């Protein structure tokens, strides 16, 4: 299993969002095998701006991502007993790492209380803590300025 960390394909996509009063509000980022990190954040609250950012990450960063994912053991989980997406929202996590591929879909998780009361608290807890890294990704992305000239992509 350790070999997966250093070789082979790596791809990660995370999405969290919901459709409601203010349209389709979501946050999504994508780590691509060639190192490109794409980020999109859409909300129609108060204004119509979609923020997009893109940057190329070095192999050193991707290697660290793989280490964190491997350590979390998320690749061993499955979402069969996880709560279905609902009106409150939806999360999607897709990871390709070497020969392994996971694709999870679940609802938003408000807190550990939601994790504990679910049908698969152990697995959902792993997912919950792993997606906490979205705050770190946002931290990294705060270094970047949005791609102003890609605002037109909002209509996708």
């Amino acid at each position: 299993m350790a070999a997966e960390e250093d070789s082979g394909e790596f791809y990660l996509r995370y999405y969290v969002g919901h459709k409601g009063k203010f349209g389709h509000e979501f946050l999504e980022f994508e780590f691509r095998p060639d190192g490109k990190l794409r980020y999109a954040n859409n909300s129609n609250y108060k204004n119509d701006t979609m923020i997009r950012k893109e940057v190329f990450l070095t192999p050193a960063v991707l290697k660290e991502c793989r280490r964190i994912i491997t350590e979390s053991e998320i690749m061993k989980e499955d979402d069969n007993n996880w709560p279905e997406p609902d009106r409150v929202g939806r999360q999607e996590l897709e990871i390709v790492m070497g020969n392994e591929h996971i694709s999870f879909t679940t609802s938003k998780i408000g807190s550990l209380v939601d994790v504990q009361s679910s049908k698969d608290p152990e697995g959902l807890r792993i997912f919950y803590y792993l997606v906490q890294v979205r705050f770190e990704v946002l931290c990294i992305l705060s270094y970047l300025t949005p791609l102003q000239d890609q605002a037109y992509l909002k209509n996708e």
Partner: protein
Amino acid sequence: IEGWIILVSGVHEEAQEDDLHNAFGEFGEIKNLHLNLDRRTGFVKGYALIEYEKFEEAKNAISTMDGTELLTQTINVDWAFSNGPSTGAFKRKNLRFVSINMLLSLG
């Protein structure tokens, strides 16, 4: 991106921001330091991002500190961002094709 950002990996789980300031401060003024905590364990996640204003400062930090020891643990130091795609073993244009391929090969 204004400054030059490096990634330090292999950071000891009990490291504090001061430890990184002490080790990396000599190369130049640290404009930003991210040392994220693992919310589950409370310990450091294992990596840090450091921003310098000047290219030379970051470059010196990388060449001097990569492979050295910090708090008894070996750290690696490298650039965080790059100009373009990295040429790896897999160079494919259509990502979705790759994912489906993976699914099919898993049976």
